[in-house]
């Protein structure tokens, strides 16, 4: 009777097994037909019983009817999730949000950190005729993950996986945007898809839009309800959970909050401090 389930109520699932991706990132696999069918860019609200509920992009699993979450430990909530053991319960509701619109031909994926999660699901949806370039950005070698998974998911595609690390310990030294900039000069892309730190996305979008290349980004904001009610995810006139999370790059560039400020849990506007 899974089809009768209320998408908006936490549905309890057992964690079946856990993959250690890096010293701070783990993937938690569970069985759930509905989540397993979610589209790239969609997210779930994940209840960590006794702790909190967090929005999480829905990660692919290579097993049928299974899905996963890939979590970096940051604050107490994500750390509590990170520390769960196989057999423990989480609650999931969703999937929520819209999804990437995958173009034919040459596509470029630009991901940083757990922003790679929706891109891995996107790889599940590419067709053999897609020529795929994927840039994985990380701070240092042992924070790089999903490289092997991406190879497997792309085994039927002409593809290129480029790693960048800020300290140069693995792949190219530098930022993903350096690579984006170069590739835009050499390749004509039919679509670019990015998810990761907002300033990384902001910069990537500016590069793509200046070349008039179609680009979409999946945006993160604090999400308390995930269903277009509480307003915590507002960015100008948009509710990220309902209008997004995926937006076209040129739309985002017209927005005077994207890349400049976000709202904290109280809804107060906080300016990004780093320079773009």
């Amino acid at each position, binding site marked *: 009777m899974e089809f009768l389930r*209320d*998408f*908006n*109520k*936490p549905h*309890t699932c057992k964690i079946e097994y856990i993959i250690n991706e890096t010293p701070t990132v783990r993937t938690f696999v569970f069985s759930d037909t509905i989540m397993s069918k979610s589209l790239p860019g969609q997210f779930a*609200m994940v*209840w960590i*019983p*006794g*702790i*909190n*509920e*967090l929005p999480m992009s829905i990660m692919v699993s290579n097993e049928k009817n299974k899905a996963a979450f890939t979590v970096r430990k940051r604050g107490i*909530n994500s750390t509590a999730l990170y520390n769960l053991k196989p057999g423990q*319960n989480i*609650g999931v*509701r969703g999937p929520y949000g819209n999804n990437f619109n995958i173009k034919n031909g040459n596509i470029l994926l630009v991901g940083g950190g757990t922003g790679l999660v929706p891109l891995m699901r996107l790889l599940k949806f590419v067709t053999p005729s897609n020529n795929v370039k994927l840039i994985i950005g990380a701070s240092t070698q042992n924070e790089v993950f999903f490289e092997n998974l991406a190879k497997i998911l792309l085994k039927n595609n002409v593809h290129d996986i480029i790693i960048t690390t800020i300290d140069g310990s693995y792949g190219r030294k530098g930022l993903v945007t350096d690579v984006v900039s170069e590739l835009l000069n050499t390749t004509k892309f039919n679509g670019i898809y990015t998810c990761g730190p907002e300033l990384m996305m902001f910069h990537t979008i500016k590069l793509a839009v200046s070349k008039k290349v179609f680009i979409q980004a999946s945006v993160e904001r604090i999400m*308390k*309800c995930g*269903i*277009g*009610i*509480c*307003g*915590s995810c*507002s*960015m*100008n*006139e*948009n*509710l990220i959970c*309902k209008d997004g999370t995926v937006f076209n790059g040129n739309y985002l560039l017209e927005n005077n909050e994207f890349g400049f400020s976000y*709202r*904290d*849990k*109280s*809804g*107060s*506007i906080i300016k990004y401090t780093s320079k773009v």
Partner: protein
Amino acid sequence: MTPNLFTRIGPISINNPTILASGILGISINVFNRIYESGAGAVVTKSISVLPSDGYDGPNMFSIGDQGWLNAIGLSNPGVDNFSKILKQNKKIPIVVSLVGSNEHDFVNMIQKLRNMQILAYEINLSCPHVEKVGLDVGDDPDLVYRIIKNIDSITEVPIIAKVGLGSTNYLDTVRAACDGGADAITAINTLRAMSIDIETMRPILGNKIGGLSGKPIKTIAVRCVYEISSKYDIPIIGCGGISSWQDAIEFILAGASAVQIGSIINYKWLKIFSDINDGIIKYMSKKKIYSIGEMVGISKRF
């Protein structure tokens, strides 16, 4: 003559009777604008407090089925100082500012900071059912309600709406205290205290364990409250609770409401709900040969 949606809630006039309820999508001026352009007659902000608040841990909101919802957001809001910066940008939107506090000083303090802004009315939240020392804890104390409204009334010309709910005293006493204190209108009702337990983990689901029930399940209770208030007191009422269609809006108006607030149904029907309700009301009025909202208010009490 053609039917007209204009409505008067005491000193407050709006172009149509559909108002965005407090706490729904309500912190961004651009979102307010979008909702206004979608057809709302006015919008109410998230309840603002003296200091910013992060609210409760999640789960903060989920469905209980049949278009019913539990929420315990915990009145997260940016606080009056941050909010006044947001509000300053308002040029044209009829915004009702919802305020929450524990005593008359909190409210006076906030209202002083909001002077000279474009504000249609204040809505005093006497009814949030799951945060201590504010909301219902205040509403349940009619003497305190009287003092709060009286104090606000003495320092501002902006109309005052008292939002009541069902707590642990007779809410009709709270309404009377608000009227006596000088409130210009009543909003009824807020969410009702409720909870859900997940039988798999055996735990309460909401982060705060107990929260507020909103949506369809509370509609008949809210209609009853509007009817009772309007039968007992001569004060304009804004109906709220479980409204999901134009038929529901009419039902509240017939019970005694001069306008209605729209909350949780926005999840299902999104922002189109405002124009849907307005269109439905106009058609109903044409059919019934009624030309103004005012004519309909409280008709059911005749029977």
